[in-house]
């Protein structure tokens, strides 16, 4: 999926809470807020301020901390505006001042003139840097939207997939009824963070946590089952594919083979669950979740069972000489 244009305005409009908050507001250069941020990184423009513009990373967000502002004040008081003019001749996405520092009127005027947005944050530079990089890695993460239902069962994120009408939503509803949580129904937006974890969430926050159940229509899960029954985002840890029972297909009877599915380059376990009247799919998913947790703790039911069988056969074989007809010892 192609990445949407991410502008400075989008950065300001991000709904970030508490320890994620960037605490940004715009000081001037409002008309430049549509400028695009193309690189998920920032630059401290110390060298550029001193007049050295070689290899200047102008495409990045420019971060001004105490040091930069002190230097800026010095050159402004000396009336040396040429380096600042030169700085603004680059198409900078935006300049951000930490500690709510004010860059000085001359700087603001120049920014306004060139249409470069100047933002302020109350955070200190190091904290702001780590938060911004974290936010940017989420924004610029590869994304894909899949058709399915994402539920959290016993703490494990299960993405239920399958054709329309196979009973994904009904299965999810039963799971919610049993105390598990709904993350997203129908459209699950998955982003790949750090190249190894898949975070799933609903495509639209405003109309999220609704489900369509055939025969009932659209229902609001939050109001029906309470906030305890929903979650905003959750890592996708297993894919459960529901399919109509096919008499000709061989389904896994032992559980020793491990199927996987590739989403955005990350391989996660995949289950194929045949659906047929009388099969209680929610209970199967609950058990699958617990079984998967056991696996991650080092207990692999199917393999352990097989090892016990082997051991038993072995001991039986060892005892055979004592009881068998063959006593040549």
């Amino acid at each position, binding site marked *: 999926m192609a990445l949407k244009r991410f502008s400075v305005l989008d950065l300001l409009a991000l709904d970030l809470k508490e320890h994620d908050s960037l605490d940004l507001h715009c000081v001037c250069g409002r008309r430049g807020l549509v400028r695009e941020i193309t690189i998920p990184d920032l630059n401290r423009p110390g060298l550029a301020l001193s007049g050295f513009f070689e290899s200047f990373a102008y495409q990045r967000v420019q971060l001004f901390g105490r040091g930069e502002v002190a230097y800026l004040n010095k050159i402004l008081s000396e009336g040396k505006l040429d380096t600042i003019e030169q700085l603004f001749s680059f198409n900078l996405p935006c300049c951000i001042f930490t500690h709510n520092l004010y860059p000085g009127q001359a700087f603001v005027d120049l920014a306004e003139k060139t249409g470069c947005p100047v933002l302020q944050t109350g955070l200190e530079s190091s904290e702001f840097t780590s938060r911004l990089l974290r936010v940017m890695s989420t924004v610029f993460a590869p994304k894909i939207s899949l058709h399915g239902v994402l539920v959290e069962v016993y703490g494990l994120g299960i993405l239920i997939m399958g054709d329309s009408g196979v009973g994904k939503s009904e299965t999810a509803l039963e799971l919610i009824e049993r105390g598990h949580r709904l993350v997203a129904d*129908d459209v699950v937006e998955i982003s790949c963070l750090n190249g190894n974890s898949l975070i799933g969430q609903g*495509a639209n926050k405003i109309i999220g946590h609704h*489900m369509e159940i055939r025969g009932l229509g659209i229902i609001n899960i939050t109001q029906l089952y309470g906030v305890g029954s929903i979650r905003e985002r959750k890592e996708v840890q297993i894919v459960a594919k529901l399919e109509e029972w096919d008499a000709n297909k061989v389904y896994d009877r032992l559980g020793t083979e491990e199927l996987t599915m590739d989403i955005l380059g990350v391989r996660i376990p995949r289950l194929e669950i045949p659906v047929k009247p009388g099969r209680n799919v929610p209970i199967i998913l609950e058990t699958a979740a617990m079984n998967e947790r056991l696996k991650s703790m080092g207990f692999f039911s199917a393999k352990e069972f097989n090892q016990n069988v082997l051991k038993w056969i072995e001991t039986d074989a060892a005892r055979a000489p004592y009881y068998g007809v063959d006593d040549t010892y």
Partner: protein
Amino acid sequence: MTTKSVTIKNRAGIHARPAALIAQTANRFASEIVIEREDTRINAKSIMGIITMAASYNSVLTLCAEGSDEKEAVDALYLLFENKFEED
């Protein structure tokens, strides 16, 4: 694969009722039908998916179908959009 682009002509955009109409129509066909809007692709057989797209008046969507009855499916959906979902 058959594709066709459509413009939403009813003022209210795709709200719950048109979404239900689209999903109902799409479900009549065996083909896999996808609606594209900018960078999102959604399954035309799911009501919630279509609503989540939040397509407003005058936005342009692309209908894509793949399967045995893809042409009929796209034509049927196209007609729905052209008739403004029997609204206005």
